[in-house]
């Protein structure tokens, strides 16, 4: 039995032909570049997993850190996604490319983390936690995830210089309060004030995003 689809060029009529520049579709190239990974997964999942990790761990961490603003957290989060990916044998089931699956998972996890840290605590929708992709993604999800990390970024760039420096040292570099105090020659108390101010600011600017995001996720949960 053969199952195949024939796609004739005229079959999909585009009612709104877009005049913008046509980039070559990268989809096939993603599949091509992952072909080797796929073959390896078929032969030896553990080996395939190792290759997958080495190929994507670094860029995924780089992406996750835009949300969580902590190297350690970003690394832990991405490692966890890889762990679940292997343990749940997701590699046998996915229909997308590996990188697409991993990005979706990382962005979901980053969102979950931010919500826990900055979101409302009366989360009725806690059942949506740890929702690795597998659910049909909402059409707006990618946009909102983007808005989220852009908002985080903007919020941090709006902080007063010293406050931002303290926040980044604490969050991004994972330094302790007294270490930061020593480094910047300020009192530990001032460090605390800066941090709480930064967090408050972050919470405020993110509020708008949250309202949208929570609404979205409640609708589809």
């Amino acid at each position, binding site marked *: 039995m053969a199952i195949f689809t024939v796609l004739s060029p005229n079959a999909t009529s585009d009612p709104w032909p877009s005049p913008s520049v046509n980039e070559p579709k990268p989809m096939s190239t993603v599949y091509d570049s992952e072909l080797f990974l796929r073959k390896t997964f078929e032969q030896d999942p553990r080996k395939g997993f190792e290759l997958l*990790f080495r190929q994507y761990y670094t860029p995924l961490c780089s992406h996750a850190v835009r949300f969580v603003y902590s190297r350690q957290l970003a690394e832990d989060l991405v490692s966890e996604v890889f762990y679940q990916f292997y343990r749940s044998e997701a590699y046998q089931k996915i229909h997308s490319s590996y990188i697409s699956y991993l990005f979706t998972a990382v962005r979901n996890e980053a969102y979950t983390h931010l919500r826990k840290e900055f979101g409302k605590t009366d989360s009725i929708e806690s059942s949506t936690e740890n929702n690795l992709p*597998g659910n049909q993604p909402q059409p707006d999800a990618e946009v909102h995830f983007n808005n989220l990390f852009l908002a985080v970024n903007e919020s941090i760039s709006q902080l007063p210089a010293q406050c931002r420096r303290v926040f980044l040292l604490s969050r991004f570099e994972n330094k302790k309060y007294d270490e930061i105090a020593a480094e910047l020659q300020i009192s530990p108390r001032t460090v605390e004030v800066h941090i709480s101010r930064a967090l408050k600011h972050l919470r405020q600017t993110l509020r708008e995003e949250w309202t949208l995001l929570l609404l979205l996720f409640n609708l589809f949960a």
Partner: protein
Amino acid sequence: MTHSLSKQNLFAYLAGQANPLERQIVEEWLKNPANTETFHAWLLEWEMSALQFQPDQETAFDKLAQRLDQTETPDIVNEPATTSPFRLWNWRPYLVAAVALLVLGIALSPVRTTLLYQTYQTAVDQTQRIQLEDGTGVTLKPNSSLQVPRFGFRQDIRQVSLTGEARFSVTHKLDNQRFVVKTSDQFQVEVLGTEFTVYARKQGTNVVLDRGKIRIDYKTDTKKQQLVMKPGEMAMLTQQGNIHLRPLAPVKAIDAQKGHLFQFRDTSLWEACYLIGEYFGQKVEVADDSLAQRTISGNFHARTANELLDLLTATFTLRVDSTGATPILKDN
């Protein structure tokens, strides 16, 4: 419908540099699920072009590998409910058990090799041309055997096992798939693209490279070693496990009168026969292994294969058995 979008537009948007109009175009584009794959591919490219930081990937992987080793069996119970509509865990243990039994059965049974490998075997007076699945040509010399895996030859490393002697002309694959000839647990030749001859018998192992580049991996009692060979070189592994790499005995074309000058210095009979094949196109075999390893020194002029064979037989006190298609050198 698929809106097209340029990568530059997306990158500007991701960097927070898009104006409201551009931003709206990107958002519309993102809302189409058909674009998700493209988006993620470009997102990857964007991240790669400006990494936020360089995580310690190796440490992270080691940690993760440790964690996985502690829980090697896949965790089925905690699987997200959305992923298994067919309740895989009901039949999976039985399937796993059945497969395990089958694998164990095959592993223990004597048919294992037959099942897993296609074996080519030549008789004493027979030479066989074999074309492998991947296009690699093998000339299997007399009294030799070659094992080629039936499964996975194309996907993984292309690995064959050889006892005896064979000449390989390896097809290079676009994905740089490796081709390995194993002659024992201690010795293998890895092809970096090319033509070469491997001679692997009890008395010793010789490898001669004609074209391209190969690497030899071998193990001594204490360590693993590697050796990269260049064309015209010969590597010899002695019974004691020592390896020698040296150029093939030099052969000079003098003129039509005098023919070729073969300069043998402790050159084995096997190597001499190999050179006859190279320079005169005449195949010659050596009857047994210990004979093949006997060496000869001296300068020999020869215009034809037979002239050199006469010199060799006289020096070694041998005779040529010409009953078959290929002359065979035998002890007198």
